[in-house]
């Protein structure tokens, strides 16, 4: 086959082929084209999104390793402690094989974190599927996807002994054909332990460590059948299988290796594009070259071609460059952990990645060209034609003439959309490591982390996305979810230090879909600036669509923060009663645009979210943190999906929590709007009466509205709005809340 034809088969464009040929000054061979096809894919090069990603603020006093520099960003948590964290998607692999797809997603993000020199201490997962209660085949398929994905995360995360401490689970028909599986990992390290993925020092040996290479992950767009041997054609697996046992040994061995002074020069995990990516990226970062011999690569299968070996995505492998003369130390450590460690090459000063097989050169390419010179595209963006129509809505036509709030709340409480996620997080070991101070089920998870000099720092984290908000208004929706993530941290008394994002969108060649991405990035960037929050890294997942259409535009953000020293953590559920409940922040509900209420109770997605007031929001967070440092705070919870009524209901769901009597402020709007609107900027606090004056004072000084809602007590939730009084037995609401998910998902 002609080289150009082959390049097209691999998914490269004609222009890209010409760019390669001109850059090299010769025709590339098939192996080389294979390497370009993966390195210049969206996944590795961000060719369609790089221009957009530049809009994020990436610097700040706490940033130690910036977005894009290394495998994960690193921020300073004070006292010599640093935090490495990142989010990664495994959407398509999970759609094909939910268990292994999700499991290898966890394994992949784990490697990104320990590659940085950090000990992984927590995972979070953000999951989106179709409706599990959909009738017929669709519902059945969704349920089996959910079971498979949760089991896969549980399998990998539990086995490696890293707790999964939080996340989200969202159902919407928009994800029916294309589920979203995003996994976040956080690691801790000392400042002086940060590792770089750079190949430096001519003559230094290059090691391959971990699992053997097989034909895993060799399929999909970047694959051409002609280059395959007959043997491999018969059995061409797309499915990568994760081995958490080896994953755990690998990170323990690497951490032990890093602890040896001056031993490791550079380290890089082999994730997407495996050996190709790890060699050219380390060489490019180090301004050096690398020469490797494929015969020395530990192989699980026989007869693998150079193309296959270089592109394989076998899991649990790393590339490590050590100082010359220290080879034995590395080999000893890996032997002790029972892992393969093979010296496969050396660092050179040629600036080229040279690949040999049996001494014969099979690829010889400039490292920089592979790693950094992918074309950058400016994609066309266009406001969707139907957007204005989607945003218009007439409440009079949707809501009944007479409000039926009593039934509405019960309906909401019984929906799998709002139900307790216990079914999920009970399957994750969220306590291993003895760090989890606030477990799943609260607004943000909190971990205690050892300071290098002894003592603890409390680190809070949360993952948030909202496809419905973003579908109705990608810019405001994205702003709102950054605000929400920061609000969640505020409820844990934490100051946000950094944000990692996963951009889940559709095909970038569709201008309306690319517009969503651009709006999303700009909205997030604006919110990040308002909160002085650097973006420290992330991931892009495009082409998320099925025959029935694209997913909702779904950026997901992970925000990590440090809990203020004086803060006493308060639960998100009410005490046994006798506390005062106040609303901190605005009394405006924001209306029902894009609300969960309209979707779940009335079956429509309509309108758009009220714009977030970022300035007030920031003040609210500051005041909340100060309030949490006061004695007498019993509970704190933010108002999010489902509005203030659902937030109050959730607060009654704790073990032994009381109900209460509350009056919800309502202007000229309909009571449903006041009760279920999802506008930003609101936090509920339960506190001792004696603490009230102090808290009122803090709010006043901080420029934040404070509204008395009522008191906790009794076994009912009683709410008055516009003079109308409604009562729900807490037991009935709680029953719906606890049972809806297990009921929808089956055993």
């Amino acid at each position, binding site marked *: 086959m002609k080289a150009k034809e082959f390049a097209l088969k691999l998914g490269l464009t004609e222009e890209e082929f010409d760019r390669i040929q001109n850059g090299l000054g010769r025709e590339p061979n098939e192996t080389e084209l294979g390497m370009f096809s993966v390195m210049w894919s969206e996944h590795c090069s961000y060719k369609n999104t790089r221009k957009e990603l530049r809009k994020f603020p990436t610097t700040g006093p706490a940033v130690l390793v910036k977005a894009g520099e290394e495998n994960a960003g690193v921020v300073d948590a004070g006292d010599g402690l640093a935090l490495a964290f990142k989010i990664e998607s495994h959407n398509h692999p999970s759609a094909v094989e939910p268990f292994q797809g999700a499991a290898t997603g966890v394994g992949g993000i784990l490697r990104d974190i320990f590659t940085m020199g950090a000990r992984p201490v927590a995972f979070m997962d953000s999951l989106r599927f179709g409706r599990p209660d959909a009738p017929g085949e669709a519902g059945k398929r969704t349920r089996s996807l959910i079971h498979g994905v949760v089991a896969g995360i549980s399998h990998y995360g539990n086995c490696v002994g890293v707790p999964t401490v939080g996340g989200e689970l969202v159902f919407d028909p928009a994800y029916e054909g294309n589920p979203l599986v995003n996994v976040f990992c956080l690691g801790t390290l000392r400042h002086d332990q940060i590792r770089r993925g750079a190949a430096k020092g001519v003559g230094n040996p290059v090691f391959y460590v971990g699992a053997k290479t097989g034909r895993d992950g060799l399929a999909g767009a970047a694959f051409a059948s002609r280059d395959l041997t007959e043997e491999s054609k018969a059995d061409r*697996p797309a499915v*990568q*299988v994760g*081995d958490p046992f*080896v994953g755990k040994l690998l990170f323990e061995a690497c951490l032990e290796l890093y602890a040896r002074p001056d031993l490791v020069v550079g380290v890089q995990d082999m994730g997407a594009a495996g050996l190709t990516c790890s060699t050219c990226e380390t060489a490019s970062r180090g301004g050096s070259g690398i020469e490797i011999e494929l015969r020395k690569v530990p192989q699980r299968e026989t007869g693998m071609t150079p193309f296959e070996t270089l592109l394989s995505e076998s899991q649990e492998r790393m590339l490590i460059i050590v100082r010359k003369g220290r080879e034995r130390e590395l080999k000893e450590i890996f032997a002790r952990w029972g892992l393969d460690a093979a010296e496969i090459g050396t660092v050179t000063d040629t600036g080229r990645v040279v690949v040999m097989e049996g001494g014969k050169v099979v690829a010889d390419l400039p490292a920089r060209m592979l790693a950094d010179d992918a074309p950058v595209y400016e994609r066309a963006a266009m406001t969707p034609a139907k957007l204005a129509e989607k945003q218009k809505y007439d409440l009079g036509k949707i809501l009944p003439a007479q409000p039926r709030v009593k039934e509405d709340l019960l309906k909401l409480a019984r929906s799998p959309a709002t139900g307790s996620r216990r079914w999920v997080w009970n399957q994750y070991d969220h306590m291993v490591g003895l760090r989890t101070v606030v477990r799943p089920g609260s607004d943000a998870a909190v971990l205690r982390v050892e300071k290098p000099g002894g003592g603890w720092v409390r680190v809070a984290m949360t993952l948030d996305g909202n496809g419905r908000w973003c579908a109705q208004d990608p810019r405001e929706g994205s702003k709102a979810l950054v605000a929400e993530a920061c609000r969640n941290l505020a409820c844990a008394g934490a100051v946000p230090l950094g944000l990692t994002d996963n951009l889940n969108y559709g095909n970038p060649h569709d201008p309306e879909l690319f517009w969503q991405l651009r709006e999303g990035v700009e909205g997030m960037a604006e919110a990040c600036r308002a909160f002085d929050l650097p973006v420290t890294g992330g991931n892009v997942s495009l082409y998320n669509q099925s025959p029935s259409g694209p997913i909702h535009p779904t950026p997901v953000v992970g925000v990590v923060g440090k809990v203020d020293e004086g803060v006493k953590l308060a639960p998100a559920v009410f005490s046994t009663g006798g506390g005062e409940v106040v609303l901190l922040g605005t009394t405006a509900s924001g209306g029902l645009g894009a609300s969960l209420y309209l979707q779940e109770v009335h079956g429509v997605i309509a309108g758009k979210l009220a714009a977030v007031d970022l300035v007030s929001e920031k003040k609210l967070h500051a005041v909340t943190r100060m309030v949490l440092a006061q004695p007498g705070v019993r509970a704190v919870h933010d108002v999010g999906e489902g509005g203030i009524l659902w937030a109050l209901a959730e607060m009654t769901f704790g073990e032994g929590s009381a109900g209460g009597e509350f009056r919800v402020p309502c202007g000229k709007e309909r009571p449903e709007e006041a009760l279920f609107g999802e506008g930003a900027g609101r936090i509920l606090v339960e506190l001792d009466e004696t603490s009230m004056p102090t808290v009122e004072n803090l709010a006043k000084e901080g420029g934040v509205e404070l509204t008395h809602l009522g008191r906790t007590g009794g076994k009912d939730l009683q709410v008055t709005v516009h003079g109308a009084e409604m009562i729900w037995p807490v037991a009935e609401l709680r029953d719906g809340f606890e049972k809806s998910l297990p009921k929808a998902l089956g055993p």
Partner: protein
Amino acid sequence: MKAVVTVTLKPSILDPQGEAVLHAVKGMGLQEVKSVRIGKHIELEIEGGDEKKLKAKLEEISRELLSNPVMENFHLDLRAGG
């Protein structure tokens, strides 16, 4: 009647479980072992029904429920008696 469905991993798919057992088997002194692969052995007891129809149904069940076609092969074996 008894149906035995043997589900095995496709040859190129990594079998972490088999790898771990391979190590252990060697550790027990059996150096001659080159590979270990672990699959499922599923026994179904069946009473009554038309054999031909059963067979077709069992094929379907083996393919759709008992095995995962992306990673596994299956072999169905029908035996009289139980």
